[in-house]
């Protein structure tokens, strides 16, 4: 065998070392997909058409049986995900527009729960829509620089009318609607969700449209899109999110939220 020049050997050896390192340090994480599914529960046919059901998700952590949390590093996948934020769309238009899953990588193997926040973090929420990167480049999910994005948008119909619930931050102070606030909004309205007793990489998280529908259809006012505290159409809806309308914070870690559940509709929520 012809001996290789010395420099070659060094390069070759260092390559081997790097590859070895990458193999043992870099790739402990596994690719993970967390599915969401719309659930009409027992309200079934009373809900006419669900025209829109979209929400932003961030700060996702998978939990194992011991309660250990493994952050889910979102894969940047335009137009639905950046490394910081994902947009889930359970209705879409013409079917092509659906995006029902979070995709990323996490360490750990056996999961039995998940934690995430519904909404857009303050630092990303008050941007210029025009230059916003996906998934924030959505005009119909944007209010203004001042109030930022609709964290969750649900538009439903029954036989007679349309109902809308749009959740986002309020109490945001700035010079005008198209100027961003310097200080966090007084009512952030970010929902914290924690679900246990299931493997989120194997079973879908159910989004309970029936819970929204029931609280909306009993009320006179058919929209709840901003004034969560005083709008009469909002009190019941907002209670389903686990948020307190008066300060936009979770009550008891939003444990009372009923929008996101696991298993079939009849199961009790966590």
């Amino acid at each position, binding site marked *: 065998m012809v001996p290789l020049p010395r420099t070659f050997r060094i390069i070759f050896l260092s390559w081997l070392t790097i590859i070895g390192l990458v193999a043992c340090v870099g790739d402990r994480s596994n690719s993970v997909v967390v599915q969401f599914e719309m659930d009409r529960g027992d309200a079934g046919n009373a809900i006419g*058409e669900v*025209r*829109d059901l979209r929400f932003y998700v961030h700060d996702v952590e998978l939990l194992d049986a011991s309660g250990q949390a493994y952050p889910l590093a979102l*894969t940047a*996948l*335009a*137009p*639905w995900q950046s490394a910081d934020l994902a947009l889930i769309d359970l209705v*879409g*238009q*013409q079917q*092509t*527009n*659906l*995006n029902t899953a979070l*995709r990323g990588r996490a360490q750990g193997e056996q999961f039995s729960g998940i934690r995430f926040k519904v909404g857009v973090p303050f630092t990303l929420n008050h941007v*210029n*829509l*025009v*230059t916003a*990167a*996906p998934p924030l*480049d*959505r*005009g*119909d999910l*944007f*209010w*203004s620089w*001042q109030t930022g994005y609709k964290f969750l948008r649900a*538009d439903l119909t029954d036989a*007679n*009318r*349309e*109902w*809308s619930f749009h959740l986002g931050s309020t109490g945001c102070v700035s*010079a*005008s*609607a*198209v100027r961003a606030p310097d200080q966090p909004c007084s009512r952030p309205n970010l929902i914290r969700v924690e679900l246990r007793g299931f493997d989120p990489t194997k079973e879908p998280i159910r989004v309970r449209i029936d819970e929204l529908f029931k609280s909306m259809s009993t009320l006179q006012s*058919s*929209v709840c*899109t*901003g*004034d969560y505290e005083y709008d009469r159409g909002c009190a019941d809806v907002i209670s389903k999110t686990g948020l307190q309308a008066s300060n936009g914070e979770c009550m008891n870690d939003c444990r009372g939220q009923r929008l996101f559940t696991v298993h079939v509709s009849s199961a009790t929520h966590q």
Partner: protein
Amino acid sequence: MWSTLIAGRHPDAARRMRGFALSIGSMLLGLTIGGCGFNGTEYRWQLPDGFPTPLVPEDNPLTVEKIELGRRLFYDTRLSANARQACASCHRQEHAFSEPSAIAIGSTGQKHRRNSMALVNVAYSATFTWAHPGITTLERHMLIPLFGDAPIEMGAGGHEKEILQRLKVEADYQRLFAEAFPFQRNRINFDNVSKAIASFVRTFVSFDSPFDRYAYGGDDSALTESEIRGMNLFMSERLECSHCHSGFNFSQFVTHESNAPAESPFHVTGLYHIEAQSADGFDFGLFEVTSNPADKDRFKAPTLRNIEYSAPYMHDGSLATLEEVLDFYAAGGREITQGVWRGDGRKHPAKSAFVRGFVLTEQEKQDVISFLHSLSDERFVTDPRFGNPFAPDRARRE
């Protein structure tokens, strides 16, 4: 675009697609460089910093030569069968490419049921006309005014040869078509006519209003106090205007290079809700295309940029001024008490939840109107690049 679309669902497929697209792309590039050579001068969009580039169909790349040809065709009345009407007859630059009459009248005098739409930033539109989910490219839309017979607009149907002959005999057109569509035989045809006009119309971009200077340019002095108050109202939960007239184009119907296909709902605003079971000639909007009863009276929310120039308003031009439009929304719809179209639009069962009605003080009303005027882009309605090429006298060939 495709790869990102698919990526949302199948990352692997997307990766494969991208690889595939890349290799095809480089093959094509090789062919172009090696084989056919010059295909026209690529058009450079002049967009303010950060604004997304509109999507252009792959089979009609935007070139300076096509735009120049399209501009001539857009203003040329000989494109209609009786040589009386050009696109520009109904779409006039000084009115943001709409016209100051309630409904359009075609070249043969037939009445259109609808108001000529303003052509502002149409390159970003996801669908075309007041209510049609299926017309998604300008190229496809061009066929309607040219060949449509219900109503007849330019009436080219059945007169194709005659119209093309008019163009073929002119040295100017021979040259323009040759520059725009090199390496084609029989290049003076309707496919190329529509591609060229679509290319011209695609360049109608307007982002230079006082509002833009304030919002995107960061110039605090670009809007008056009243305009700022009006803008805040426009974007408020009380008025809800920006729920439907949303995003940088003040329309829900936006697509461009970097975003997903737009969600494209059509809305019932409560302009009509006829009591009669049937009414000859009544315009049911989206329903006429889909035949789905739930689509009755749904229309698209058009852009509000340059809205000051394009009175009268709504799909049938039935509201004369912006004040009337605002009163209409304040009332939560319109009741018509007489005639065959009578009925209470305010009680339309499918009316959008965002048209609830509101009360404004006189001052607030004035503020909202001022804001709407701040969406006017004077440069757009005077830009010579969009003007009549048959000048110097600027007279249309009518």
